[in-house]
């Protein structure tokens, strides 16, 4: 690959690298801000100018997970000494951990909201991608009457901003008792993502030569077996890309989650800002919640990066 470069090309190359670095830094700046804030002591979170150098703390994360209330009176030295390290961190912030009658520590709303986000995003992604893949395969390989009209119809569900249908959806959901349920959100997000998934997967499956399946058919497999053994592995790249997009959409969705859920099925996006409103906001705790919220998407994308970057694997079919 070591191509011969002229001096001009080399300068251009360096310039390109520098500009990519600058752009990357611009994009990463807010993320740095969130991450650093989530490790700051509370009094350094809102300083002007921003504090760059500080001793990182985990207290924002501890506070994020626990249900707390304002301290009326300082804990006695004995109480303080008897408390575990995480409870001391809460005491240091002028708050105490809320316990129920039996003395069990109460968790904050965050862990359950986070879990809701995971459940809803994962299940709706699996549904949207699998249904989309089957649908796309059908459109790609069989003669479907009015194929173009169907595909257009499927795409047209994306033409309105989803918010437009929020009120009717809310009323429908209330009638069917789907408000504030996991199923309700899963159906909603699957429906949002399905059209996108069908279109994206159709593009990928169209690229897979149909000779592969035909070879499998001749080799003695049924069409279903050929689909699972040949088409799916070949479409892995497309499936990965589609899954990442669907997951991100479902994970980050805010408006519907805000309208359709209150407690039981509430996801993290409407929950995190709801913590800003009451009293003086503790920005470090909010930053910690946001930081944790960013992780699953980052991890998911990172795990699938090879598929996202790799092109389709050609080379085994004679062109």
């Amino acid at each position, binding site marked *: 690959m070591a191509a011969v470069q002229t001096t001009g090309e080399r300068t251009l190359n360096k310039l390109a690298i520098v500009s990519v670095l600058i752009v990357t830094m611009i994009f990463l700046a807010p993320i740095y801000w969130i991450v650093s804030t989530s490790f700051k002591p509370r009094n350094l979170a809102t300083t002007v100018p921003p504090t760059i150098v500080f001793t990182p703390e985990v207290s924002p994360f501890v506070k994020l997970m626990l249900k707390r209330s304002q301290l009326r009176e300082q804990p006695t030295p004995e109480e303080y000494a008897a408390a575990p390290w995480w409870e001391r961190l809460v005491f240091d912030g002028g708050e105490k951990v809320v316990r129920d009658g039996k003395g069990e520590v109460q968790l904050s709303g965050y862990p359950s909201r986070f879990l809701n986000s995971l459940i809803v995003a994962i299940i709706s992604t699996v549904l949207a991608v699998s249904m989309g893949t089957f649908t796309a395969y059908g459109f790609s390989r069989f003669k479907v009457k009015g194929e173009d009209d169907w595909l257009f119809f499927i795409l047209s569900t994306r033409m309105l901003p989803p918010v437009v249908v929020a009120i009717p959806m809310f009323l429908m959901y209330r009638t069917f008792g789907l408000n504030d349920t996991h199923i309700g959100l899963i159906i909603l997000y699957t429906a949002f993502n399905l059209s996108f998934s069908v279109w994206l997967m159709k593009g990928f499956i169209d690229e897979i*030569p149909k000779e*592969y399946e035909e070879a499998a058919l*001749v080799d*003695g497999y049924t069409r279903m077996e050929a689909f699972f053994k040949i088409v799916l592995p070949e479409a892995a790249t497309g499936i990965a890309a589609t899954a990442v997009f669907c997951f991100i959409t479902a994970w980050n969705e805010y408006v519907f989650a805000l309208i359709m859920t209150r407690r039981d099925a509430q996801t993290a996006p409407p929950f995190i800002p709801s913590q800003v409103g009451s009293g003086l906001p503790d920005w470090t705790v909010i930053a910690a919640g946001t930081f944790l919220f960013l992780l699953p998407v980052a991890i998911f994308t990172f795990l699938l990066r090879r598929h996202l970057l790799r092109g389709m694997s050609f080379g*085994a*079919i004679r062109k």
Partner: protein
Amino acid sequence: MTEIVLRGIQKWFGPVQVIKDLNLTIAPNEFIVMLGQSGCGKTTTLRAIAGLETIDEGDILIDGKPVQHLKCSDRDIAMVFQSFSLYPHMTVFENIAFPLRATRMGKADVDKAVREIARVLRITDLLDRRPSALSGGDMQRVAIGRALVRQPKAMLMDEPIGALDAKLREEMRAEIKRLHLKQGSTTIYVTHDQVEAMSLADRIVIMHEGVLQQVGSPEEVYSRPQNLFVAQFVGSPVMNVSPAAVRDDGGAVSVAVDATVPGFPFPRELLGHLNGHASGGALAMGIRPEGVLVSREARDGYVPVEVHLIEPLGSYDIVDLKVGEAMLRARTSAGFVPAAGERVHARIDPAQAHFFDTASGQSLGVRL
């Protein structure tokens, strides 16, 4: 030991009829080569036999049983595709083992069968590779291996070596022949390369625009073409075909390709064989370049002609001769005629001449 019978096959793609009333019986263990120009329906015929394409009319019989309504997986036929279609996400081993995995064969047996085929095809050291890391010739071997491994009732091969370079093609041709002799399964092989067809086939099937033109041994289709299409399609360089007039001046009979020059002498029986077609005017004579004899000196029965062009082809030359306004291509030993523009003498070997009815294109079956 499989016989395949095609009976009255018709196939339309929308308004276009791609196969027109195809009838063909393929004997057990026969190597049939289907030869025809691009788009004449060869692939479609193979796909219909394999079950990848439905037919609109007719029967496909395998060992006497109609299979046109069976799924491909129930026909037990293997196919090597025009594109090799190796599964890119599997290794060579997995590719070859794939058809066996569809059966209930045990793991050890699969392993044994794959290694055996790999040994025969000399690809043992490639078994762990991915198809994308193979050369064209290797891919072709793997594709053939995948087809052969489960010992199918019949093998269909769709231009399997069409995309390889000339040298490799020659090698592969020999290899395919060797494998067929060894395995002996009924094979239908599609190509548009007639050298391939000639060298491989027990019988050649020539198709043109969905119509079967002639079936016969390579020798038959070469030396006794049934119509003008076959005559001009088979053989390289192409057979000379020109309108011909038979002259009968009492004693001698001659055939002229141009009114202004004397005709080439022919024996008298020609008139009887032509059966009255001689006078109708709708007659064409075909002669392969090797049937045009060239002499540098004037000789009895030779007609003076002018050399228009010489194509040296290594072991022989193709010489374009101007006979009046008509052209005849002759095959001479290399360097026999030194330069274009020279005047030489030519004669037609009556034993190698073919006569056709220009209206119907059919051969008149004249053998002298």
